């Protein structure tokens, strides 16, 4: 049913232009390697990285590392989002809770997750628990702040309507305020996914017994630079994939008709 010209435009916008962007970066990379005659240890060519990636994906250790990182992320993200939305909702609804929580939230949310890495290693060692806590922490503060803000911005007429209809405060909070704020909360959840994924990998760089971050630091100590960069590419791809997935899920359920 699409018009042929519209179709051509879609191909151009969705496929050709993004591809051109990627190729441009790869070309600049290759040109840098050639022009400065860099050794592979300093900066391998894109082809060397691609080869390293091809070898990586054939090892089970690689998939295990990806699995561990994703597991840490998923559990931490789930805890952080659910708790963050719940507390954000209470913060949006209750003046008393908002007044009490604001100084704590506002100061802690600037203590970036990375600042906690030494403590989480001290408390949880290099286990997955430390990473899960860290992701949950990172995600929690994004979600509590954006949920509270989204609830505060719900059209006041909707609140008046809910009261007029005789809804109880709890029902107003969940069936009206939370539902009305849901699209905003969903886009915050997508942004939080990126932050949570970054937190996982960063924590693994510093101390872990498995995971993508550990894989990369191990490769770096054995000077396998192509593997280091291949790992970085995987981090980027997985992160983008997770973020896109959450975006699609949110849109399917919530998009305004």
């Amino acid at each position, binding site marked *: 049913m699409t018009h042929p010209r519209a179709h051509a435009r879609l191909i151009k916008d969705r496929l050709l232009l993004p591809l051109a962007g990627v190729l441009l970066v790869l070309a600049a990379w290759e040109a840098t390697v050639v022009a400065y005659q860099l050794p592979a240890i300093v900066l391998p060519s894109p082809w060397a990285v691609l080869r390293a990636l091809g070898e990586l994906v054939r090892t089970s250790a690689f998939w295990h590392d990806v699995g561990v990182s994703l597991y840490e992320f998923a559990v931490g993200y789930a805890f952080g989002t659910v708790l963050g939305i719940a507390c954000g909702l209470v913060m949006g609804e209750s003046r008393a809770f908002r007044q009490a929580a604001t100084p704590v939230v506002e100061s802690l949310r600037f203590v970036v997750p990375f600042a906690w890495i030494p403590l989480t290693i001290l408390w949880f060692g290099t286990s997955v628990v430390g990473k899960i806590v860290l992701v949950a922490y990172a995600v929690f503060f994004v979600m509590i702040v954006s949920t509270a803000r989204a609830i505060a911005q719900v*059209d006041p*007429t*909707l609140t008046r*309507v809910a009261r*007029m*209809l005789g*809804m109880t405060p709890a029902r107003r909070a969940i069936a009206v305020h939370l539902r*009305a704020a849901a699209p905003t909360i969903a886009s915050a959840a997508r942004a939080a996914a990126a932050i949570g994924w970054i937190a996982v990998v960063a924590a693994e760089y510093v101390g872990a017994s498995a995971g993508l971050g550990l894989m990369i630091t191990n490769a770096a100590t054995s000077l396998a630079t192509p593997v280091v960069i291949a790992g970085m590419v995987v981090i980027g791809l997985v992160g983008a994939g997770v973020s896109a997935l959450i975006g699609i899920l949110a849109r399917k359920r919530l998009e*305004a*008709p």
Partner: protein
Amino acid sequence: MNAPAAAVAPHAASSPSGGELAVDGVHHHYIAALRRTDVLDDVSFVIPPGKVACVVGPSGCGKSTLLGLAAGLITPAAGTVRWDGEPVRAGANRHLGMAFQQPGLFPWMTVRQNVAIGLSTRGHPRAEARRIADEFLDTVGLADFKDAYPSHLSGGMAQRVGIARALALKPRLLLLDEPFAAVDAFTRLKLQQEFKQLLRLQRPTVLFVTHDVPEAIALGDMIVVMTQRPARVQRIIPVQREARDRATPAYARLLAEALECLGVTSDMDEEEDAQ
């Protein structure tokens, strides 16, 4: 969109379903940032059962406070608000329906769901709520838009849904907060006419807040003119049936009287003074 409000015979007026709303010696003030602002100062009036009182007054004269008091959302600092002789209490007032300046439709629900939600919240079974919602949407001429979402409606249509939602509750007291103020002038006149016909079906007691004096004359049985803040009742003007016809001198007299209360004099007077 063009369907008239209801195929109601003009003389099919039912007996009033509403009760009496009595506002008696009400004072009210707000305290914000440690400053006290007096809003209402000794406001008294009575709306007899099934009558429409239109409250007009300058901006910020506490008209919305008055609605909040009648709805039981606000407790007066002094004085009483009585519904059928009983003081209005806070909480779920089942006799109440309300429509607002913005339609306030839930954007994630269809038009039908928006009307039915009020009924199911007040304890009607789902199927019955749907049936009543359909009935009222037919009445306001939105039969073809039941499954549409609010974002696909024009301003006038959305406002009709908001009014259908309030009326579907079969309220005995209907509170209206400038429900036609946000639509264009032509749609407003049409909505006013439809609304008048709808009221003939149910005859609730109506407290209607508006900025628009011609609207107050068109819809009200009485006009309560308020002063500036802290607001008092400046005058209560009964609206005679013949004064609703814009072509009559009675209408012109009533309009001039109400506007004069609000401090608006006609240009003609000034010109005469100048001569």
